């Protein structure tokens, strides 16, 4: 087996749902040992969210949970009990990283905040992921993906609706992507802190606000509004989303040679010689006249044909694809983007891996997501040297 990038790194993850677990998954998939701490009796709330096989809910078969918790070890522990809190402290003493997503202040109430834990282990990096960060007027606000996504400006920026739909409310991006964004930003920051620790020997506390992680992804647009009180109206790109025979394609022929390539793909129509088509600015000003001409032509061709033929001509064009079409896409399959993992309850399933192929330290699917408490004995008896009897007692008194 190849080496892993994060071999030997010990991570504790006390998180639920998407952001924190995605941060943990990114590290686990590159070889870190991630111990996922779930509170009894139900564990991570993601276990109650679909998709489930045949839509039958089962705590070990949630597709959301399975995807976000690959390569982790799972233990049950209630840090809210005195004994559970002590156990978490012992685990933190041995760890390099703690990722936590409790509401601001709660870890301090439990005696598990950065100040307390760094006194036990000065090398520990603590990454706190919350909707709005540890400070500021919104810090105690509740917020789900819907709220954060819309508040951070994303839906106002990308939503250039056709005229007939402009009265409709803005719409959230699918797939809870903004929660993934928070986890990805947290993983970048956590690795940077670990890199710095190689020379300083010191850990630190990282405050991640999911709101700000989303906002930072629109930094270009925010900078525009912050610096130009009344920015010019964006007339819109010619092309973009276009209906075609069997769905939609997206065309971003922004540079001159790309527009010329698009005209070639379309057989150099006579109207392409008109003054309105002279350059990007004129085309944009006459978008309402030119766009229907593109639509009319695209409507006669299927999306995959448009994609391959267009790319051959040099047009940046992509088909709007479903998850099934992507799962069967030869390019992704040949690159090994999907892998199979076997799970004792959910069975063998196909999972997306990661976008990066690292020549020395490839993505590894060593194990599927843990069952609730699957590694209690391994960690508590093996790592912390509790006896079987102590383990039974801890289970009986609700510690684990």
């Amino acid at each position, binding site marked *: 087996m190849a080496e892993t990038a994060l071999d030997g790194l010990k991570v504790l993850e006390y998180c639920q749902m998407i952001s924190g677990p995605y941060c943990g998954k990114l590290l686990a998939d590159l070889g870190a040992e991630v111990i996922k701490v779930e509170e009894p009796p139900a564990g991570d709330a993601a276990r109650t969210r679909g998709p489930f096989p045949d839509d039958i809910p089962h705590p070990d078969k949630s597709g959301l949970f399975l995807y976000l918790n690959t390569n982790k070890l799972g233990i049950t522990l209630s840090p809210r009990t005195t004994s559970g809190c002590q156990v978490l402290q012992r685990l933190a003493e041995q760890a390099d990283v703690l990722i936590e997503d409790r509401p601001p202040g709660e870890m301090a109430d439990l005696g598990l905040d950065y100040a307390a834990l760094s006194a036990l282990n000065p090398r520990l990096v603590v990454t706190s992921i919350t909707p709005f960060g540890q400070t500021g007027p919104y810090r105690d606000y509740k917020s789900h993906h819907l709220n954060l996504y819309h508040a951070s400006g994303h839906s106002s920026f990308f939503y250039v609706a056709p005229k007939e739909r402009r009265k409709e409310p803005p719409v959230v991006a699918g797939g809870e992507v903004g929660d993934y964004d928070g986890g*990805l930003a947290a993983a970048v920051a956590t690795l940077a802190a670990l890199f*710095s620790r190689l020379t300083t020997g*010191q850990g630190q506390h990282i405050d991640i606000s999911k709101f700000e992680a989303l906002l930072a*992804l629109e930094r270009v647009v925010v900078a525009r*509004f912050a610096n130009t009180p009344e920015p010019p109206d964006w007339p819109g790109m010619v092309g973009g*989303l276009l209906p075609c025979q069997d769905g939609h394609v997206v065309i971003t022929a922004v540079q001159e040679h790309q527009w010329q390539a698009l005209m070639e793909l379309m057989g150099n129509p006579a109207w392409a010689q008109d003054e309105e088509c002279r350059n990007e600015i004129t085309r944009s000003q006459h978008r309402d006249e030119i766009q229907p001409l593109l639509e009319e032509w695209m409507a006669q061709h299927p999306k995959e044909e448009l994609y391959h033929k267009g*790319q051959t001509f040099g047009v940046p064009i992509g088909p709007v694809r479903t998850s099934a079409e992507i799962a069967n896409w030869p390019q992704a399959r040949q690159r090994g983007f999907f892998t199979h993992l076997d799970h004792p309850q*959910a069975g063998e399933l196909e999972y997306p891996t990661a976008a990066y*192929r690292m*020549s020395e330290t490839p993505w590894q699917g060593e194990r599927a997501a843990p069952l609730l408490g699957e590694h209690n004995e391994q960690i508590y008896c093996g790592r912390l040297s509790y006896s079987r009897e102590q383990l039974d007692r801890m289970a009986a008194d609700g510690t684990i």
Partner: protein
Amino acid sequence: MTKGPLEGVRILDFTWAWAGPHATLLLALLGAEVIKVESRRRLDHTRLRSLMTGPTMTSPDHSVIFNDLNIRKLSLTLNLSQPKAVEIAKRVVQISDVVTQNMRPGVMDRLGLGYDDLKAVKPDIIMLSSSAVGATGPERTYTGYAPTFAAMGGHAHITGHLDGPPMPLSGAVDLRVGTTSAFAILAALYYRARTGKGQNIDLSSTEAVSALIGHIFMDHSMNGRVQTRAGNRDQTMAPHNCYPCLGENKWVTIAIACEEEWDALRRLVGDSRLQDERFADASSRWQNQEALDQLIAEWTSSRSQEEVTQALQKVGVAAMPVLDGPALVQDTHLRERAVLQPLQHPAIGEKLTVSPPWKFSRTPAQIDRPGPLLGEHNQYVLGQLLGMSSEEIERLVAEEVVY
């Protein structure tokens, strides 16, 4: 000034446009020294044009967009069509830790700057190449931009109104790809610090989109089912939508996750129709969410975004205004956390810029230098780092090698 966590790391950056520069922007904000290789012959187009910000710029040094995506970087102008420029680039590689590039797969190899070429002069170099669909596979030469990545990665298909067309999202897609690249580079740096080994990283922008919505593929894997557009709806929560408020195009989002929150909302709204048995439990509320949304909208539409948000948050219900650019710039929370910071630029004056999305207790990220003027750091890189004499540099400028 405190040192950033990546202090001492040097990156030679051949990327342009949005996604690649965002990756190295994050690393620059973390303290790395990023040397951006550019040329008058092939300018990063964000220096010159953007329909989004208005007219085409007349100078390469006046673009707010370029500035924002290249804060803290250094600019070295090299005309890579000249073999001498390629040799100089390789000399900088020898004193660098990471090389990044996002040209069409194969271009860097043809220039003599592929991974094997760089490894020959710097055995432990880390190289990240980011492209539309990856540097291997039958479609490796295909190109794309943020909206095509969103389309092909599966995100456009699941974003949009219930009865509406798919939405290819926005430039944020590029920044997501860049953040993914930054993560991979950091993992490789951590590995190299412990083993001494560099490596080659081949990143597909389209796959980066798919990985960030990965669980939708599980539904296909489990049930052979394709997820599609659901507007603002959630799979279980209701109410879960945008509701109109006082004012033009003003909205508030409300999401109810449990009975406690539902009771709090119902008490606050005080509308007896919400007692109806159609809304008695979570599943019936979900089934009847259209009717439910109408009642909630009746309540929100005579109130301001702030009033609704504050009243609901006070009783423990998740609610937030839908904010646009001007509103975000004024937002009190972002102000208190100093998220927008002023940055002085020699050509365009003081500009507000967005801080990185992390706050470190020991190694705060730095915004201490704007995006570079074109070729601003030629003297530093060629003279100070490579030890060239002024005459030598002048000759290279005259020969349009440094150009």
